[in-house]
């Protein structure tokens, strides 16, 4: 039943037309919660991006002084991106393994995904220290401030993803129902990869 049909239901006419509820299948609550949370992440990073543009002084929406000095993109940022991409692929392997019942794929996939996730976060920290040694401090330019803030927000979301990775690992090791956490965390990871690519695009293009 489409959303419009649902919202168009004349519920006061119910007596006499008591159809059984057609929605016999409902997706897992955790999945719905994650989808709603994607909305929250989207608006969060969307707002940060629009603040970024405004502060930068985009034509027509700038209120700021022209003090914006863009940051460089050192090779490490691309390496980190590749690591995050590989982590996503590892998650995908674990997800496919779960779906097809190929347990041989699940464990290595999970371990690789976790390791690559941690590696990415370490790489981001290394990137921070590289920038700091080059004199790109938080307070020295708004471009730097946005960079540090966005990477922190993204990193915190990834740490949340690692928490669910821990849950999936525990379940997988204990032989519990790991399928749902693996599927959902994989999707979450892909989403954060997408967010990162968009944010990277923001850094590169400005």
């Amino acid at each position, binding site marked *: 039943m489409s959303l419009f049909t649902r*919202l168009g*239901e004349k*519920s006061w006419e119910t007596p*006499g037309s008591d159809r059984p*509820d057609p929605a016999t299948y409902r997706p897992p*609550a955790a999945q719905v919660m994650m989808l709603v949370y994607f909305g929250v992440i989207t608006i969060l990073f969307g707002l940060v991006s629009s603040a970024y543009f405004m502060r930068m002084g985009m034509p027509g929406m700038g209120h700021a002084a022209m003090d914006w000095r863009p940051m460089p993109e050192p090779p490490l940022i691309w390496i980190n991106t590749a690591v995050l991409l590989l982590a996503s692929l590892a998650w995908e392997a674990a997800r496919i393994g779960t779906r097809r019942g190929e347990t041989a794929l699940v464990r290595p996939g999970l371990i690789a995904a976790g390791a690559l996730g941690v590696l990415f976060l370490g790489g981001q920290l290394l990137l921070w220290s590289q920038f700091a040694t080059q004199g790109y401090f*938080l307070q020295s330019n*708004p471009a730097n401030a946005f960079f540090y803030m966005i990477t922190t927000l993204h990193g915190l979301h990834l740490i949340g993803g690692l928490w669910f990775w821990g849950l999936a690992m525990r379940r997988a090791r204990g032989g519990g129902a790991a399928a749902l956490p693996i599927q959902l965390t994989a999707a979450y990871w892909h989403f954060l990869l997408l967010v990162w690519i968009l944010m990277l695009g923001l850094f590169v293009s400005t």
Partner: protein
Amino acid sequence: MATVTHPTLADDLKPLHHPKTFIGKYIWSQDHKVIAIQYALTAIAIGLVALVLSALMRLQLGFPDTFTFIQPENYLQYVTMHGMIMVVYLLTAILLGGFGNYLIPLMVGARDMVFPYVNMLSYWVYLLAVLVLVASFFVPGGPTGAGWTLYPPQTILQGTPGHDWGIILMLASLAIFIVGFTMGGLNYVVTVLQARAKGMTLMRMPCSVWGIFVASIMALLAFPALFVACIMMLLDSIAGTSFFMPAIMAMGNEDMGYEGGSPILFQHLFWFFGHPEVYIVALPAFGIVSDLVSVHARKNIFGYRMMVWAIVIIGALSFFVWAHHMYVSGMNPYFGFFFATSTLIIAIPTAIKVYNWLLTLWRGNIHFTVPMLFAIAFLFTFIHGGLSGLFLGNVSVDVPLSDTFFVVGHFHMVMGVSPILVIFGAIYHWYPKITGRMWNETLGKLHFWITFLGVYAIFLPMHYLGILGVPRRYFELGETGFIPPSAHLANQAITIAALVVFAAQMLFFWNMIWSLFRGPKADPNPWGAASLEWQTPDTPPKHGNWGEKLPVVHRWAYDYSVPGAETDFIPQNVPHDGSARHHPT
């Protein structure tokens, strides 16, 4: 047709773990009803602080040069803390965390929220946010006095009270609140989507659930703007970044080290949260008042579908009007035109709701119970606040009225008094279900009449003061040429009315606390309401709400005075073939 023996969808949930200890039941509880009460009591407690602050403000405004303990910086701190506490920590928390938690699972026929543990966490994070906020009263310099809008650059400049610790605690508290709310909000939304009992289609949900549901979605999408703004402002004040701070000299000669930041950027972020926030508070109130009016007028809500659609449309539109709070910020006139237009468009779905409430009352069997009195009072205050909103929504009228008491009168009417009246009505309405006891009706009516007439005595004259040009947030008017002496008289009258209303709230607290222990045992369904929360096997409902079997829903929530029916209401879980027509009266 569906048989009652069929396992319902939500019966698939894993069995509830019933806590045995006192701490498990009442402190670290995962029961949505306990969490709701925890949320509500915390919100009311911090709301009382804000109420005291408002009384102090009124003392100063009514009788300047009388109270030496109120200094200008104290006054600004009262203004700030009163506003922020009332809007965020009281109204948002009690409507979504309190009523949302209590009503959603009971009204949609679920055993609990879908993620009880996250729900519990949400409350404790909220409590932490409140404690951080309260802590700012006890740090050197006191709480921030930046005004509840926290506009930079003055917020973190040295001239502003609480610029060293107060503002940091305020921003940190807001960020913590938002994290906690997000946990709760995700729960409310997913519970409505996933945990409805069999037969409870979206369009059979009571308006209360619709209001809370849409408001929760809005809050999830609006609070990130405040979150980002708080983080950026924290960085500006602690780490010396220049997101919002322009190059500025403090105290005449000291360079603060900021450069090029945009204060307007903060205003955009703040109001992108701030305007939807108005409706985050208003939509649950709209929903609840629809149910109160319908139950106590023994009539189905007029135009149910339109009521639901209007809630959804108002929620969506409210994301496109934020800059009407910024008409005096020097924005492009075309922006002002756009935002004035979008603002006035919201009047259409809002007016539909108002007409539908009135048409529900029309030829209803109106019972002037205390909840109904509060619901009708809401119609008055909301219409008044809404109409003065039409003035302020127009740029050319807003510009001279900006930052005057007209604005204060307007927003207190529309989003202060109106939701509070609904909250009172809702507490009186659901108290018998929550506690199993009945309150004292005489005290309730006394509380109502003093509050209702009192708020008019307080806020109606403020509109006149505003038109006279009395500015808001001023410690005292002093000798101001264009302000006639009558303004001072009006201020005194407002203060006296405010103190009377303040004192009358003690009737409410006394009534609630006394009735908890001494009130007569309440009927399981004292109002004869059709919605599901009144059909629980126990009053107050036990953990798990529904005993062995979840309810099955056969009709909408508004079958009142159905022609030919035995009683003047038919509960939602009564099948229409009459075979199981057995329900409490």
